[in-house]
């Protein structure tokens, strides 16, 4: 299918794009917090695939992992020299043992979005791939090019950082 795409077969493009564009877009969106950036990443990834710029090898792994990897590189290129994509919302001082009374689920999600955006990229991508994209540790490890143990430790550390940040903002169990 990829070879047909690279030969200019529009039906092959439609099939591949229809199947792989949504996850690539969502991953880029969740990593960057920007729909415009996510669209640029989709363009970069598929243009590279169309022109076989990085030489996709089916024997090296599934296309899905390859495309996530390409998206990751595209995001990294954009991140270089930039500040974290989203500033942490003004932190609310911890309120002793008293949980933040009446916090709505939506508020919790908003705080989480900010906390996630403030994570270093290598922690954030572990959370996005494992917990939000629901990929296996093995697949995540393949995409990130690290051992599975590293994925586990990054995920664990990322969750620890999220807990810390959310706790500082008054989110309690």
């Amino acid at each position, binding site marked *: 299918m990829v070879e047909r*795409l*690279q*030969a*200019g*077969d*529009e039906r092959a*493009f439609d099939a591949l*794009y229809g199947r792989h*564009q*949504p996850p690539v*877009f*969502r991953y880029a*969106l*969740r990593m960057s917090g920007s*729909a415009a950036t*996510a*669209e640029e990443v*989709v*363009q970069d990834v*598929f*243009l590279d695939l*169309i*022109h076989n710029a990085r030489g996709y090898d089916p024997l090296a792994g599934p296309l899905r992992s390859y495309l996530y990897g390409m998206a990751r590189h595209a995001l990294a290129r954009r991140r270089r020299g930039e500040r974290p994509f989203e500033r942490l919302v003004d932190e609310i001082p911890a309120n002793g043992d008293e949980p933040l009374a009446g916090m709505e*689920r939506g508020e*919790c*999600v908003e705080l*989480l*979005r900010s906390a*996630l955006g403030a994570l270093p990229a290598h922690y954030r991508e572990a*959370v996005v791939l494992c*917990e*939000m*994209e629901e990929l296996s540790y093995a697949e995540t490890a393949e995409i990130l090019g690290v051992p599975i143990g590293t994925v586990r430790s990054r995920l664990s550390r990322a*969750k620890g950082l*999220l*807990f810390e940040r*959310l*706790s500082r903002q008054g*989110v*309690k*169990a």
Partner: protein
Amino acid sequence: MTDEKLRQALRDLASESANAEARPQVRTALRKAVRARHTSPMVWWRAAAAAVTVGVLAAGVARISEWPAPAPSQVEALTPWYFSAGMPPAESGQWIRLEVPADTAARFGVVANGPVQADLIIGDDGLTRAIRFVQ
């Protein structure tokens, strides 16, 4: 906050963008790139083939004569160039007279004991359209 609550919150966050996709314009732009991919290799192949062949011919050329081309009575019929099938018709172009080595002329079915004069017809797009040998 427990690990399970955090995971639930992450799932809630993920569900917000579960159906997110790039706008249709992105697909349209990429489709154009695919289409160009479909056509461009042939165009480049033709251009490269023409360039290579002109180079081969030029290698054996003693001189390039002045234009315009000679009267039709002095020349053979035009032979379409190898890769001219499917090319857009050239509205204008140039003749170039060359002396072609005998072995190159033989590839076009012209048997000669020595160099043969030939006219190459090149469109304004730089691609060769036809060749004819001067008798």
